[in-house]
Structures are given as structure tokens and as C-alpha cells.
């Protein structure tokens, strides 16, 4: 693989960017003033590398100022398996809350983009890799339901490593639950827009993320079912360059458009208008 995956793993701990006033871009190595990077929506001004973003920054960036209202914020996992590996799942959840600055791997709510109301779900890569357990599944299903009831478009900004192992089969069940909820929205004539960001993989890719009426992706986002390392181990060969990146998925016909982060608001608004929503 080229240098991107390594680059991505380096920033995993701090979704935004490394701490400090100056940052060395993980892709092109350019020195960037931190404030500039933030003004550029966490995109490298030199090479356009799209850094991962936490949910709250994304919400602030996508919505008209002061319009986002969160719902179902109080949902928490009941730890159905009483799971523990090297640490207990409950400890992991507590750590994740601090690390992510959110109570779960997705925030759902109602917001406005260029004056157009919509229901949205924004995933947070800092919360156990944006993994989907019962809470994420419930929030996605509830958001789809709300979109249907209020006849509003649904937007999902996906960012996830897949189903959450620590909830076992409960997590896998969320794939069925979210897909069924999207089916109901679809049947009611609702518009469903997906924006795939880095990474959108496994159980989330293979459920609600790939069910959009229209699928947008940020440049360079890793999108796929199996992880690149798993595939490389299975086929015992190096993977083609750019494999499973947004551009690769576009070329193979599974993405409608690749959209630069700065253009997301206007692109989403335009699609809503075209669909008369």
C-alpha cells in the first residue's frame, strides 16, 4: 500500500491532527499552521489530504450555524455480553467517551444545510473506531424513522470500522435493523444521502452506508468490506495501489461522486433540490 494507511493510523488517536501549533502533514510532509488547517476544514492546504474529524466538528461544519438539534443523546450500551478482553467493555466505553467527546459513535439530530431542513447522523471515528453496536443501530433506525415521519431527507456521514465486536451478535443484528429501517424510508419515498468518509468499512459499509439513493465520498476515504490486511493475508499478494479508496470505488461503479469537504454543503443542498425535497 502507499503511505496513506500508515498516515491514517498515525492520526487515529487524535482524529483532528497532531497537537501543537504547527503540524507536519502525514501525507505530504508540509508544515501547516494548525489554525490554517482548521480553517481549511481539516484538509491539508498543500495536498488535499482529508483528516478524520470528530462528530462535533463535522456537525458544526455541515450545518447552518446554531441549527443542529441532537436527539437520543442519552442512549448507552447495556453491555449485553458482559464482555471483557484485556479490559472490560464498560471500561472501554468510559475511555471512549473521554477520547471522543461524545457518548457514542454516532450523533443523530435535525439540522439545516443552506436553509434546507434534514435529519442526519454523524459518526465519530474516535469512539471505538466508529463501530456499530446497539446504540448506533438504534440511532440510525430512529433517524430513518424520524426522516420518514417528518418527510425530511436523511443524511448519514459514515465513518466506521464496522460492527462492534464487544457486543457480539447484537452488533451484527444492527446491520439487519438499520437496513430494514432504510427500506421503510425508501418505501415512503424518502431521500437518503450518504457521505462516506475515511474509513467506511465492514458491517457499516455492508448495511446502511451502501443503501443511499446517492452515495458521495470524501477523497481518499477507505471504503470496503474486508480490511486491506485481511485481504492481503488471504490472497498472499500485495494489493493494487489505491485499492479500496474512494477513487477505486468510483471507478468500479459504487460511488456517485467524490466531493471535496469544502463542497459538501453545496452538493448536499443541490441534490435535495433536484429531488424536490
Amino acid at each position, binding site marked *: 500500500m502507499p503511505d496513506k494507511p500508515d498516515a491514517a493510523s498515525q492520526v487515529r488517536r487524535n482524529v483532528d491532527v497532531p497537537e501543537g501549533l504547527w503540524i507536519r502533514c502525514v501525507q505530504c510532509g508540509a508544515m501547516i499552521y494548525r489554525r490554517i488547517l482548521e480553517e481549511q476544514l481539516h484538509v491539508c492546504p498543500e495536498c488535499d489530504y482529508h483528516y478524520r474529524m470528530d462528530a462535533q466538528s463535522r456537525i458544526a461544519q455541515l450545518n447552518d450555524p446554531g441549527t443542529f438539534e441532537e436527539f*437520543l443523546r442519552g442512549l448507552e450500551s447495556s453491555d449485553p455480553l458482559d464482555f471483557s478482553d484485556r479490559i472490560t467493555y464498560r471500561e472501554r466505553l468510559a475511555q471512549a467517551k473521554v477520547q471522543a467527546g461524545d457518548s457514542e459513535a454516532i450523533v443523530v439530530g435535525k439540522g439545516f444545510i443552506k436553509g434546507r431542513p434534514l435529519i442526519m447522523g454523524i459518526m465519530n471515528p474516535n469512539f471505538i473506531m466508529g463501530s456499530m453496536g*446497539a446504540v448506533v443501530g438504534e440511532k440510525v433506525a430512529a433517524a430513518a424513522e424520524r426522516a420518514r415521519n417528518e418527510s425530511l431527507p436523511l443524511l448519514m456521514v459514515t465513518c466506521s470500522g464496522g460492527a462492534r*465486536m464487544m457486543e*457480539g*451478535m447484537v452488533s*451484527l443484528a444492527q*446491520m439487519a435493523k438499520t437496513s430494514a429501517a432504510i427500506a421503510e424510508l425508501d418505501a415512503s419515498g424518502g431521500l437518503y444521502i450518504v457521505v462516506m468518509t475515511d474509513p467506511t468499512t465492514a458491517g457499516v459499509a*455492508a448495511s446502511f452506508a451502501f443503501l443511499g439513493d446517492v452515495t458521495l465520498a470524501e477523497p481518499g476515504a477507505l471504503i470496503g468490506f474486508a480490511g486491506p490486511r485481511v485481504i492481503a493475508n*488471504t490472497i498472499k499478494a500485495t494489493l493494487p495501489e489505491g485499492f479500496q479508496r474512494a477513487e477505486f470505488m468510483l471507478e468500479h461503479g459504487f460511488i456517485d461522486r467524490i466531493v471535496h469537504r469544502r463542497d459538501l454543503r453545496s452538493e448536499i443542498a443541490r441534490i435535495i433540490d433536484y429531488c424536490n425535497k
Partner: protein
Amino acid sequence: MSSEPTAGNPAGSPPTYVLEFEKPIAKMEQEIQRLEGLQGGSGRDYADVIAGIRGQLQTALRQSYANLTPWENVLVARHPRRPLTRDYIHLLTKDFCELHGDKLFGDDKAIVCGFARMAGHRVMIIGHQKGRETREKIEVNFGCAHPEGYRKAIQKMQFAAKFRVPIVCLVDTPGAYPGVGAEERGISRAIAVSLMEMSRLPTPVVAVVIGEGGSGGALGIAVADQVAVMQHSYYSVISPEGCAAILWKSAEQAPRAAEALRLAPQDLKRLELIDAVIAEPLGGAHRDPETAAKNVEAWVGKALRDLRRLKTETLLRRRADRLRKLGSAFIETPPTEPAPPAKVRTRRTRTASAARE
């Protein structure tokens, strides 16, 4: 390993592949076979000895199979002699009419589809086929389907649903195939579409996990009105080895992962993720495929009888409700809205609260 194309393991003949915990059992089975051979050859009568060993064998089977660890259960689910989808088709159906191809790309042999008469119903069977001998295993890719497999399955299911033919899914896969071609042809999208479309098929759908229920590749044909898992099968979000490699940094911790994942049928039932556990003959389905098949038939027959009584509208409403409530393992901590508790907002407080007002 076996060279037979189908299970058909005659009762009493020992499985040629022996799991670690079954070694004492295999020894007894070999002894019985040896004595039977001697008896035939020499004309001497070992009936009493054989009966004695048989008694011990039953006790040993009962003891070890009553206390299988989750990991041992996984090993039984993967047993090379365990009956496969085509064995169940062979044992349970009449007039199997196989239907191939996804009408888009190809015919994925990892998923078998076709009309058949089963348990008193005319049904569409959809099942993963893992393959028995090496050549078949390679041909069916060890039961790991590609996107065209899921597209083939959903195409046949929609065809069946158009005529309200009930659908019986037999789940047995380590997972969808993790390869370059699968990604190029959109395995994520194929599974996602399958999940969505199965949730609204206007005909009864039942699913039975007959062996391995490996993650999304299994769920891809298992969204149903009623789901059962056979006693020595497993159904899991990730393989125990995969989970161990990630969380314990060592695939050798798979037995611990199997326990932590609660992937055994009884646990899934307790979590209300499945509806029934189908009993297997003593010592696992591979010791007596006919009895295993009969148990599957009984469950499928009853489930379909009940579901066919429902009006399509009711059936679909129930399925939607069921999926909506599936795996609701969360608690709600008040107060929720509108003012979020300050403690969870450790970063970007200003931006976030500004956005909310």
C-alpha cells in the same frame, strides 16, 4: 478426510477426522469397528463386548457433548463430516430444481438456490455450500460467497416472493470472501441490498444456521421471520480467531474469544437474537445426519405453517417490527434533551453548544 460427495455417514462408522476432545470417543468407535470386523471374519461372537463398549460410548458422548465449551462447539460446527446444505437438500427435499446465476455477472457456487418440496411445502431453498472433498471445496470457494452470490440469492428470493413461495435459508459460511474481486464487484453493497430486500420480501422467510454463521456473509441470507440455530452451530459477528487476533493480539486466544463473544445458540436465544435452537443427535449432526435433517424439517415445517397463515400485510408488519426491535441492548440515561450533561462534552464545547442554540 472423506471422499464422499454427501454426508451419508452410516451410523456407527467413526468419523475419520477426530476433534481433540473426541479422542476417547473415537477410540471406542474404532474398537467397536475392529471387533465387528473380527466377528465377521472369524465367526466368533463379540456381541456382549460390543454392547458393553456401545454403552460406554453413549455415556462418554453424553458427558462430553453436554459440556462443550463455546470453542469446542465451534469445532463441531466446522467438523469436516458435518452435513452441508446439499446434504440437507438431498435428505429433506423432493424434486430439487436448482436455479443458477445472478443475471448480472456469474453463477457463484458458494450459494445454492432452487425450488424444492420440503416439510410439506413448496419452497425456494437458498443456502451456502461449503463443499466436502477438496475439489468441491475449491469449486464453491469453501462457502465464501462473492457479490454475485448474494445477488443471485436475492434474485431468486424476489422471484419466489412474486409467487408467494416461502423461502428457506440454510446458513453455513465462514464469511463472505475477503478478496480483490469481491471488493471490485461491491461485496458491501451486495450484502447491504440483500439485507434491505430480505426485510421486505412479501413471502414467509425462515433461516436455519446449520453450521457456521460467519458474520455479514451469513446474515446476508438470514434476515427472516423466524431464525433457528442448530445446537452445535455458531453465529458470530467475527470468527473467534479474528476477534482474538484483534483484542488479545493472538489468534491462539480463540477459545477465550469464543466464550466472550457468546456465539453459542443458547446464548443467542437468551439475547433474543434467534427464535429457536434445533436439537442435534447425540454427538453432533455428523454422527447422524438423518436425525439432524429430520429435526430441521420439523422446525421448518412448523414455522412455515404458522407464517403462511398470516396475511402478507401482517407478515411484513411483523417482520418490520421484529427487525426494528432486534438487539435493543441499550439503556436510556436521563436527562437527554435539550440540555446535554456538561461532563460528556470534553472537547469543542463552544462550537457544539453554539450549534445547538
